[in-house]
């Protein structure tokens, strides 16, 4: 992990809601895999105070590309302060031939870097865009990807088959949708696959992250074994069979 300055070399508007920033970064920060991220500081003042979580979607020769909502404004040549790469690479299995990716009310950006590797080794990948996720621009997705769109989780056609056939499943939903969405997905998986083995079904946890380094304890995820571990260092993807979803959901309902 490093703290370095990077320069925004180019800004491309991908859709009304999505833009991509091409960043000139130093080598240590290009050594990253799908699922890792940066915490970026873009202002000289302390407003905003916390860093923004930046998700890389592509690696070029000397640059990396990150995706940001267009409501944040950036400028070409702007110098930003980058902390990272943070988090663990998504645990994509070499043997995973059929990949199921689910974006629930969230941009699927976080999958794109992992998808590059997966498609490069000829895995098949299906991406399900649910709700607002449908607004994500299809032309920004790799063409080898099968894309399915659904207004609601319930109206996702052939949901059972998709879940049953996948070798690995990754789902992303923003808080506070994450816990209920992952719970439903886990229940579905348990129903259609009878048993859900370890390393099959992953949920991505993206709570606000003040430090990104495992120190401030603002991003803890509660596991079945009773441990509470930082999403910033142990995530952002967690094996949903290891997460104490039930207790977390109950607690957050009572909060």
């Amino acid at each position: 992990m490093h703290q370095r300055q990077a320069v925004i070399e180019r800004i491309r508007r991908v859709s009304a809601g999505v833009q991509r920033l091409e960043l000139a970064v130093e080598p240590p920060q290009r050594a990253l895999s799908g699922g890792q991220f940066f915490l970026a500081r873009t202002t000289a003042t302390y407003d905003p105070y916390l860093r923004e979580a930046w998700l890389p979607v592509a690696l070029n020769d000397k640059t990396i590309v990150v995706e940001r909502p267009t409501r944040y404004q950036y400028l070409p040549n702007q110098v930003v302060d980058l902390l990272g790469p943070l988090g663990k690479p998504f645990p994509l299995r070499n043997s995973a031939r059929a990949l199921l990716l689910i974006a629930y009310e969230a941009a699927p950006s976080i999958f794109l870097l992992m998808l590059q590797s997966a498609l490069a080794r000829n895995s098949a990948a299906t991406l399900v865009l649910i709700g607002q996720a449908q607004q994500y621009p299809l032309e920004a997705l790799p063409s080898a990807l099968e894309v399915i769109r659904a207004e609601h989780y319930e109206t996702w056609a052939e949901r059972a088959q998709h879940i049953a056939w996948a070798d690995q499943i990754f789902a992303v939903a923003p808080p506070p949708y994450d816990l209920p969405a992952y719970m439903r997905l886990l229940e579905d998986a348990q129903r259609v696959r009878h048993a859900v083995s370890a390393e099959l079904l992953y949920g991505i946890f993206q709570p606000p992250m003040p430090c990104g380094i495992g120190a401030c304890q603002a991003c803890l995820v509660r596991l079945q074994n009773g441990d509470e571990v930082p999403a910033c260092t142990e995530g952002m993807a967690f094996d949903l069979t290891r997460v104490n979803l039930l207790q977390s959901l109950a607690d957050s309902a009572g909060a």
Partner: protein
Amino acid sequence: MLEITTGKMTLRLSPPVMGASGAFGFAGEYGKLIDLSTLGALVTNPISLRARRAATGARVVPLDSGVLIHTGLPNGGIYKMHRQYAAKWRASPIPVIVHLIGTPEDLAECAAFLDQQAEIAAIELGINDALTAREVRAMVARVRAQTQLPLLAKLPLYQAVNLAAAAADGGANALVIAAPPRGTARDPLSGQLVGGRVYGPWLKPLAVRIVGQLAPRLSIPIIGCGGIHHPDDARDFFEAGARAVQLDSVVWARPEMVIAIAKAFSGGELTRAAGALADEWRPLGEPAERRTTLIPAPPPPHVPSPPEI
């Protein structure tokens, strides 16, 4: 440098710049990013007698130039935490100060235990806002009776002026001024009003004022804390009467600034020996001006160097 001596041992803070409880983790998590050995000491995140769970849906609310956070102060309890971290604390190149929270009984038990652990350099007590001066005196005295380790008491901002003498009378060797106040703000995730502590640079003028009020009245040293984001901020605390400072949330915003602040107060042994003020120490690797000002402002007449034109 600040030395705090009790019967048993001396806590040597050199430079007089520490990582505070809350943002630095339990055992040098930031060592991955910055050279913690440049600091004078590290205070652990809060540790209680029994385990505490994380607040579910831990609340992080962005504010203008600040943030409200409620973590619930999760930790495994003193015995488990000690098993987990003792080796790392022993290996630490700088003194480790354990921040304790809990009832007087809990604190006393924790302190008695820590008193036997050689890797612990000092104890910092988190003083609850709800306590009266009488309760604070009794609580500190009860902990004092259990340990000869140097004892720091961290006082809450609003009540610091009212509680300082009580903490000193109870046997604290130094006071940390101040822990940030609580606030209420709308959580963007849940849409609800939620409570938590509030952090940000605006804490500094509030804490500096209280340090200035208390320093002349107390015989034990004051450690300034709150909103320090630049060597100039630390300098303001020293000028107001603090003998050391703690840094906390700046490490999220600008980790490199932690080192810059530590280095700014690392030199100057010679000057200090000759009786100079802390804020006259030789600045090393000090970054540029704290912030630009509204109207181009030259320094005061006694240091004439007007603005560039």
